[in-house]
């Protein structure tokens, strides 16, 4: 699949619900003394997943956010192992479905091996 999300003109019919509040781990070990968390408010789109949420941020809000784009996007390859806290539970996997109005925290799988942000040397 191409991970490039559709243009605005093609996204009609998407069910727009309450936006998602995503707190995302940010860290550039070559420049930042400490990791920090950045908050993004992302419009909810039909059947949004963790991966399409990150793509939405990268494409429309913040091209500096680093996560692995070269991955299957369908829960096979394991590249997507983030630590995601949703409603107090820790879940993992890029195909995790999100619901409108979700408040989530996305952290890298292994903070000791962060290259930048969510990109980890697995």
């Amino acid at each position, binding site marked *: *699949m*191409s*991970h*490039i999300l*559709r*243009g605005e003109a093609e996204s009609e019919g998407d069910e727009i619900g309450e936006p998602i509040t995503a707190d995302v781990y940010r860290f*550039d*070990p*070559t*420049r930042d003394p400490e990791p920090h968390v950045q908050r993004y408010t992302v419009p909810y789109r*039909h*059947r*949004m*997943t963790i991966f*399409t949420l990150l793509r939405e941020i*990268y*494409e429309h809000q913040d*091209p*500096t956010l*680093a996560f*692995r*784009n*070269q*991955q*299957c996007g*369908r*829960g*096979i*390859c*394991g*590249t997507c192992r983030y630590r995601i806290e949703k409603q107090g539970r820790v879940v993992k*996997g890029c*195909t*995790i*479905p999100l619901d409108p109005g979700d408040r989530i925290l996305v952290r890298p799988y292994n903070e000791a091996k962060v*290259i*930048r*942000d969510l*990109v980890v*040397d*697995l």
Partner: protein
Amino acid sequence: MPGAIEDAVATDVVIIGAGGAGMRAAIAAAGKGAKVILLTKGQAARSGATPMACPSYQAVFAMEDNRDNPDLAFEDTCFEGRYLGDENLIHVLTHEATDRATDMLKYGVKYRTKKNGTFLQVVHPGHSFERNLVIIGSGYAMAASLRREVLKCENVTLLEDVIATRLLRAKDRIAGLVALDMRRGMPIVLRAPSIIMATGGYPELWRWTDTEPGLTGEGVYLSYLAGADLVDLEMMLYYPTGLCYPTEAEGTLVQYEGLMTYCQGAMLNGLGEPFLPKTDSLPVRDVMMKLMFREIEEGRATPHGGIYIDLTKSPKSGEEAMEILRRLDSLPYNQLRDLRIDVLKEPIEVRPVTHYTLGGVRINEWAETTVPGLFAAGEVSGNIHGANRTSGNALAETQVFGARAGARAAEYAQAAAGAPPLDRAVVEAELRRTEGLLQEHPERIRPIDLKRKVKSIMHDHVHYRRDAEGLRTALESLRQLKEEVVPRLRAVGGLRVYNYEWEEALEAAQMVNLAELVTAAALAREESRGHHWRTDFPHMRREWEKHTIIRRQNETSYLVTDAPVVRLRDRSKVRRAADPTLVNAGVLEADVEGS
């Protein structure tokens, strides 16, 4: 970048791409005693085409039917490739696939077996007998096993998150390459007498694709820039059944072979009518995609522009069907479950998507390109399958030609005794180019937007149906992009470590150029054959039973020419007849001399 040339690392063999072919090549080269650097722009066994591949590996073990044999597999592959594949390569592929499958057993790859312990082999369209092994855990498990084997090789250095940006050559042979190390955000220069290209193909040039997004084709383009002949670039294989709804799963491949042959699901148009001609076996991919697109174009599509695969009509019970699906690994269960789709309870909507690049870098049976010291193996190579490919031959190709490329590259490096000196001016120009992509521009165009433009042009004019007018429009649009948009291409600035836009900018810049070459090849081939479907030349023509070749002339121009197909048999005498039912349905050519 000061120091990059002085710090150049020398080795015997550099392999670009760590998928099935690249990793197999590394094992083979290391086995011959060569020092190997294996680099991948993603992570080995977690990126690229191989981990996403279906579990199918074609090899004539003849464990289901002892009438099967490699010569029959050879004939099947020649015929289904519409006689455009080089027969010396097909001979190697079909006769060595079993030995390479046995190698993989040693690396820890497991195939599904039956109660008596023999391999389960399944028949897919185009196979005379049951011939595909079913890899447990699909391409992902195969890649993971190969990676473990690679890491056992002491003389292989694996570099991940490193993208090759330019090959370097001396007058008469390959000399090294420039790459960008994403983890440090710094360029690196490597020197080697042998380089193996194993980067996969370019399905990402189109909008509807089932492949991983890194398949942007730079291996093909870098080889071209280094002077290698490209062959049959117009041949892009459409896999018939990628999901077209829900949009979030668009392009996810479901294996129609398993769903229809073994689960006895039905393929129906949007009106709920069956439309496949009544044939003895399921149609192969080029025929299937034509049948499906015809329904879609003639107004009989599903609500989201596709075709239904309906398992609810299967005579098998839900439990039986699920058991078969699990055994054959035909579906991405996790994703469908998370999307709340139950294939046993509702029909799914699918349509053909770009899947596998048939064309690419021209090689001989030792995976040598036309540039001494440059090798190519796997999907990046272009003259093996022809105009269509049967199921299971892609993974087999990675192992057969990966092993050959690795062995021959190691021998070449030993004989060459070191890499030729680098051309400092070329290296410095390349370093300036990659650095330049980080510089500010008042009207910066993002790489993702350039990719969108390329995909849109290819979708509109160089898709499954083509004609001269559309192809000329595409050429004009691509040239316009090169002049007006590419100079403004920039990654987000002020960021070096894992700046994904930087990588995307490198990809996007060459995608424009590669798209132009693909379009030029499509314009040159004035016939319809396999996956190349020209509405202005609707028939397969015997005089076009030859390769299109694209060769670099200089900075701004290329030569479009042709070359004969390598034959091992006299095809004026030995030629399989097309199924008359499909000929009558207008989706396969009778292939008559002079037609």
